[in-house]
């Protein structure tokens, strides 16, 4: 029994993510309040914003993934997507089990299919997606 517990303890102690891998995620997460503010300034109502954030949080999405999702949605609103649909597609994809980059890509593909948003592979215009300051020099 002691061997089993020792093995389990070793397994638990071995991190699957190396120290340092978390830095880009932390930098993305720092942008979440700014991106949400951008959504509000773009005309998305506070109740809709809160609903989206609650949904993301309830499903256990880390803040950096939430930031990716909100960024895609904000870009879509800037590109003409209806504000009252903010987060609607996201909720459905989350319900389907998508997370992380797969989720962000699904959102982007949906926007492309609707003729909204930026061309594939191009970063958001005028905005640095990593730095908290947000603006590309």
């Amino acid at each position, binding site marked *: 029994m002691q061997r089993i517990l020792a093995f*389990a303890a070793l397994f638990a102690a071995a991190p*699957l993510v190396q120290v340092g891998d*978390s830095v880009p995620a932390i930098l993305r997460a*720092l942008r*979440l309040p*700014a991106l949400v503010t951008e959504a509000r300034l773009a005309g998305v109502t506070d109740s809709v914003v809160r609903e989206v954030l609650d949904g993301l949080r309830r499903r*256990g999405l880390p*803040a950096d993934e939430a930031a990716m999702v909100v960024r895609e949605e904000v870009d879509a609103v800037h590109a003409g997507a209806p504000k009252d649909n903010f987060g609607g597609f996201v909720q459905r994809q989350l319900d389907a089990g998508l997370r992380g980059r797969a989720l962000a890509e699904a959102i982007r593909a949906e926007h492309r299919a609707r003729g909204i948003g930026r061309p594939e592979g191009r970063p958001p215009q005028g905005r640095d997606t990593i730095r908290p300051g947000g603006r590309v020099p």
Partner: protein
Amino acid sequence: MNARIRWLAFGTALILAAACSRPGGEAAGEAGAASSMTATDHTVDDAVAVAQAIEADPAAADSILAAHGLTRAGFDSLMYDIAADSALARAYTEAIN
């Protein structure tokens, strides 16, 4: 019977170990319980200080969080809390931009 109990214990230990070590364990959903301080213990000023320190030295991000009493989960929770409050989110955004 003894062997059965051992296998059950082994399986349980593996499941617990996997749950503790997977990357998603840092996710916001599990955050509250894991953080040493809750997000409400931190102000926007704290969050801004953390953001500016990390921006200045991204490689030290983990230690900066720790110095402010934040785990990754607690940090995620803090970002969510600020984002959910329009006034706090605006104050944070203006301060870091």
